[in-house]
């Protein structure tokens, strides 16, 4: 059999190759057959960064370092704690590339994060045409700054001079061969990876691919990361303890996220809790109205949200408190728990809050997450 290499995803494995009238085709990336970017697209003149707030000294230092590394044609992995202000760290570099009319992209695995990010980038670069590209929103794919999901990267073969990938450890990007190859194929210059919880492999890989790891363990408001508290529950009365804690926080008029591991369990738990604590909502990937519910929650119309892991990253709510039910569930690994705890205390003036892990036993992930956050706090030299 002659060897065939898919031009879109680079797949060579014969098991994914089919034959259509004798002509080979790739079955792996078959759904990704939309229109591709116009390679001759010209970036607009005189795009500049107009930040209305200053970066913190630490942010400033890291942002300059990133820029210097990119000038010397190196790739960067920024390992910064949750709420460090990761997006701002790449603004200088983006501005530098845009000034020389190069193609800049900002990719993330989650659609919700793209929607959240676009207005922020528009504010920072008001003169640029910033576009969002994600599933169901892909009629316009040419722009000065392209904010997109990693699934859409296939539309941009060797297009980006600077590609930033946020949340590289998030589902579905993590461990997905296809998305990773789309990423590799779309970069023609350098890339910057952002993560609060990079895995060992991520760090090894970037070092191999002439890149460097830059760390930032301090939040932009100089507050410490909120330390999670582990609370042992018993399978029978666990839900009662949970309701008690939730009611206490709701009475304090604090917004609360209650994380549950699965949709089925979430429906069960929410069904019960909603009888006792009113004015909540259950959001999951299957919930069509989640965008509206999250907006209502941010406006303070809802007092708590029961949620699956979809809100585990990329969300900022002022003075949020977090409860995690069945934190010892197999779906919660250490990185996920660190991310969840990182939702708390992200705004200036509300830098602390409660994070409670409810579980029947303190397993490796829970211990690891608490240790990790402790370690970051020590390394931030604020203690």
């Amino acid at each position, binding site marked *: 059999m002659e060897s065939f290499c898919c031009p879109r995803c680079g797949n060579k494995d014969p*098991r*994914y190759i*089919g*034959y*259509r*009238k004798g002509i080979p*085709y790739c*079955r*792996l990336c*078959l*759904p990704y*057959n939309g229109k591709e970017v116009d390679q001759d697209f010209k970036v607009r003149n005189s795009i500049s960064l107009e930040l209305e707030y200053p970066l913190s000294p630490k942010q400033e230092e890291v942002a300059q370092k990133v820029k210097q590394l990119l000038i010397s044609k190196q790739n960067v992995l920024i390992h910064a704690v949750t709420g460090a202000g990761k997006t701002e760290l790449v603004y200088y570099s983006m501005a530098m590339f845009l000034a020389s009319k190069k193609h800049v992209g900002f990719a993330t695995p989650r659609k919700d994060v793209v929607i959240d990010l676009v207005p922020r980038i528009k504010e920072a670069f008001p003169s640029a045409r910033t576009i969002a590209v994600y599933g169901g929103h892909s009629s316009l794919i040419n722009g000065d700054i392209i904010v997109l999901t990693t699934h859409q990267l296939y539309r941009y073969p060797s297009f980006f001079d600077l590609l930033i990938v946020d949340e590289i450890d998030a589902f579905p990007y993590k461990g997905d061969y296809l998305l990773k190859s789309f990423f590799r194929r779309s970069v023609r210059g350098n890339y910057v990876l952002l993560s609060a919880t990079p895995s060992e492999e991520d760090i090894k890989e970037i070092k191999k691919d002439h890149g460097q790891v830059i760390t930032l363990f301090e939040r932009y408001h100089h507050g410490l990361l909120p330390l999670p508290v582990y609370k042992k529950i018993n399978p029978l009365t666990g839900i009662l303890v949970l309701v008690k804690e939730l009611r206490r926080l709701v009475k304090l008029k604090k917004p609360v996220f209650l994380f549950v591991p699965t949709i089925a369990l979430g429906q069960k738990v929410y069904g019960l809790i909603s009888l006792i604590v009113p004015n909540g909502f259950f959001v999951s990937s299957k919930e069509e109205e989640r965008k509206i519910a999250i907006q209502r929650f941010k406006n303070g119309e809802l007092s708590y949200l029961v949620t699956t892991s979809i809100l585990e990253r990329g969300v900022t709510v002022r003075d949020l408190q977090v409860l995690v039910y069945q934190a010892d569930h197999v779906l919660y690994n250490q990185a996920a728990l660190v991310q969840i705890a990182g939702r708390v205390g992200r705004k200036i003036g509300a830098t602390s809050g409660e994070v409670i892990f409810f579980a029947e036993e303190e397993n490796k992930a829970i211990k690891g997450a608490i240790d990790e956050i402790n370690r970051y706090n020590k390394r931030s030299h604020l203690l």
Partner: protein
Amino acid sequence: MKSIVTTKEVIYCKSCFKEISLKPLRYLIEKKPLLCDDCISNISTKLEERNINGTKILFLSSYSGLMKQWLMNFKELGDVELAPCFLYLFLPIIKLKYPGYVFVPLPSSEKRIQKRGFDHLSLILQASHLPFSNLLLKEDNEEQKNLNGPERFKKKGIILVDRQTDFSGKKIVLFDDVYTTGSTFRESLAEVQKPHPLKVKGLILMDNFHLDSLKMK
């Protein structure tokens, strides 16, 4: 004693790409398996026979789950490797139930075939090694455009390719992928029955018939 070394070709599932590890029993029956046990168990089997306008029609599956997804990939994305998978599970039943029958796929319009690059129903039958004949044709004529309102939706423009062929003693199975309102299917049935073949039966891959869909008309 000499040790016996057996080399086995690794076979991958056409649907989920995983390596197929068969139970011994399946090795006896299937020479070259296409699907793994998991994917086969995900196919919803219906196997229901209904009488429509005096013709017995066999529904193999319901319009849901894995089969629906396959049809999507097959028809819209052109994943032709899936063609033999559709009837794979049902082939023993079909062969026993319709001996000596000729399968007639419902026609697609020439435009659709051109756009897709293949006639999907013929391809399914061909890949399953069933005897088939494209007796019907869908006209994409301008006349349909001239019809207005409900008139236009009544006639789908399905005609026999050749009215002169001798149908006496022939047994025909009309084959379609999805059955929703059944209007196209009934029109094709009437057309096939015109030259009076010996027997006419129907075979539908997926049943998408709801009472609601009739009310909408």
